[in-house]
């Protein structure tokens, strides 16, 4: 298909952003449920939480896989530089995702206490570690990593563990915990739901502390991540939407409108990712200290032809994906009931 004068590089910057935002909103809640898993003590409660995400976590993770594939296809230089440069971080992320996936599947297969505890730890540990590492990766991309003139990563594993990326990692964990707690309240009832409702407040406080600290750190130490907002004050409306959405969560929770609380949490995530994207554009990975070596939507992209083909694929595929994703959430709506097919 011919897309004429359309700026395909920008379109793909947006589409990759949409894929990762979709990932954060969807897998975010099941990673969050995983992070909260060990706080429940009763086996039945743990099973209910697992089955709340049971039918959907796998599909949610596909957003990450497809995001990775789209990055490979649209911006191969970013995929190559980041994945090889952050080698050990990605290996750890893989290990975390593997343990998490098989823990969900294996846990219920045997009744022994030690068996279930082992997979409980795998599930919770894997969820927390993957959320944290995703945040750390974003923190590094924003702070900037050493990139040489060939576009290769020039740092070490330890370079990645700066205070700002770690702060972003912790913030991501707190965000997903809040998101997961809201989702869990939607899917449960009775005593467990009461307990989870209390947790939402704790997780919101945890998140707000992290988020406020991160915002301050960004303004003071990473001024380039606020530059576009400084130059275009009207964009501050997005930050305002973000604040209102976050503030709306405890309000809706106290009125027992859990669905609206979940939507508010999603809106906050979209606003945060929009701000992140606005400040990064047109860069995909910032180079620090030599800013000229940054990977951008132009020097890291595939050919115009391929970006066009990929856009056609996306235009055919994404509506179909959205249609049956919505149907599947609809089929599994309502509170979790344990039966013999449950985890």
């Amino acid at each position, binding site marked *: 298909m011919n897309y004429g004068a359309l700026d395909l590089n920008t379109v793909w910057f947006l589409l990759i952003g949409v894929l990762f935002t979709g990932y954060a909103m969807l897998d975010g809640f099941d990673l969050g449920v995983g992070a909260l898993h060990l706080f429940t003590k009763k086996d039945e409660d743990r099973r209910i939480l697992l089955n709340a995400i049971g039918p959907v976590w796998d599909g949610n993770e596909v957003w990450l896989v497809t995001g990775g594939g789209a990055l490979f296809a649209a911006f191969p230089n970013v995929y*190559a530089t980041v994945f090889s440069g952050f080698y050990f971080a990605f290996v750890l992320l893989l290990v975390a995702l593997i343990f998490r996936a098989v823990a969900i599947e294996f846990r219920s297969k045997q009744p022994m206490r030690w068996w279930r505890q082992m997979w409980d730890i795998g599930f919770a540990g894997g969820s927390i570690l993957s959320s944290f590492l995703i945040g750390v990766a974003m923190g590094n991309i924003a702070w900037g990593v050493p990139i040489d003139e060939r576009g290769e990563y020039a740092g070490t594993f330890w370079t990645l563990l700066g205070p700002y990326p770690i702060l972003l990692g912790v913030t991501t964990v707190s965000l997903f915990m809040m998101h997961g707690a809201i989702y869990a309240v939607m899917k449960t009832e009775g005593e467990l739901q009461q307990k989870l409702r209390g947790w939402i407040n704790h997780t919101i406080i945890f998140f707000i502390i992290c988020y406020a600290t991160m915002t301050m750190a960004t303004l003071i130490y990473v001024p380039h991540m606020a530059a576009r907002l400084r130059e275009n004050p009207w964009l501050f409306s997005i930050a305002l939407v973000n604040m209102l959405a976050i503030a709306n969560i405890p309000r809706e929770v106290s009125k027992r409108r859990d669905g609206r609380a979940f939507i508010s949490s999603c809106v906050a995530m979209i606003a945060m990712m929009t701000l992140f994207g606005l400040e990064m554009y047109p860069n995909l990975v910032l180079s620090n200290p030599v800013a000229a070596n940054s990977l951008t939507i132009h020097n890291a992209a595939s050919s115009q*032809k*391929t970006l066009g083909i990929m856009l056609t694929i996306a235009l055919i595929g994404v509506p179909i994906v959205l249609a049956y994703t919505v149907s599947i959430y609809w089929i599994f709506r309502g509170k979790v009931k344990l039966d013999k097919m449950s985890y």
Partner: protein
Amino acid sequence: MDVLTLSRIQFAATISFHYIYPPLSIGLGVILVIIEAMWLKTKNPLYHQMARFWTRVFALTFAIGVATGIVMEFEFGTNWATYSRFVGDVFGSALAAEGIFAFFLESGFLAVLLFGWDKVGRKMHFFSTCMVCLGAHFSAIWIVVANSWMQTPAGYHIVETANGPRAEITDFWAMVFNPSSMDRLFHTLCGCWQAGAFLVVSVSAWYLLKNKHVEFAKHSMRVGLGVGLVASLLSLVSGHDSAIGVAKNQPAKLAAFEGLYETTTNAPLVLFGWVDEKNESVHGPAIPGMLSYLTHGDASKPVIGLNEFPPEDRPPVQRVFQLYHLMVGIGFAMIGLAVGGAFFCWRGILFEKRWMLWLLVFSVLGPQIANQAGWFAAEMGRQPWIVYGLMRTSEGLSAVVTANAVLGSLVLFTFIYLLLFAVFVYLLNDKIQHGPDEADLKPTGKLAESLGGHRA
């Protein structure tokens, strides 16, 4: 060891472990579709019980397949970054298409297949099973297309960029239908169907030998043997077509498969043997002229030998020869087993023939070994190229990753995969010992309603 060797070992280890599971999912997917169709048609609750049991086995293989599959997608970037820069424009598109068209479909409807038993009607459940099966096949299509492009690149041109030369798409459909993709896809799918079918056959034979779940085992055996027979025979056809393609497009690979050094007319087909790489000869029984005949349909036509290629452009002959012959040998054995089993089954004497049932119990290993051997032969036969004729494997590595880093991740993955394999075997055995659930003979929830009462 150097980065190249370690990276190749890591890739081989992670992909061969991964490749145990997707063929099972693809094969079991087909079997589940057949079983559920039979249930819809005959309304015999035995088929419901079968669908439930094999779904549980499917779920187990699928989970490990997904978990180990993400590693593959990341590994191109982590260990083969230079390769990724070179092929991203082409290869990346196929991977992204796999995500959009296959993984979402598969994982989405898997939810209904596994957890929707009491939530949707029979027809909706059957539809979901079909979609999961279709998704698994789409996934095979895109990944085999991507891999085949590495074997026989087409629809691209090489462009100089600031980061060096790279391949860019000129014709998307020429890339998708590159000279080897359809032959290799068909052959790969035949291997997958056999993997699923012979797992079903093996478990059913075990139950029959132990005189447990007899009705369940007999019905499962018939479905498994049927799929296994068709897939084994098609495997022969697709394998033959594939080999003709290799002879045409990758002559060095075919010469290594067959252990042929001298280009010659009336080329012999070595049935099995030993390659003497030093003296460039093969020892073993051979049928004169057969290789020429199979390749060209004419024994008097020449087949290109390895001597046409400089030593640095040849694959490792001995290993490729042995793996290829292992695959072919098992392929014929599977045909023999499937034909024998189906014949006894047709005569109605299979369930008394204990020796045959014992053979069928072990048949599950056949497709697995053949799939692995075939994949190794295909990939090693492509060496020393990572993209045939365009980029050498040694040129595709990540520039910034050290041998120690790869060694560390290799040790880590090996440890985790051994653990996963142990747990998989333990749980699979547990499911088999537990057997089908008697309560599943009575469908519950919406499934119990008559077909007219179904709500989509």
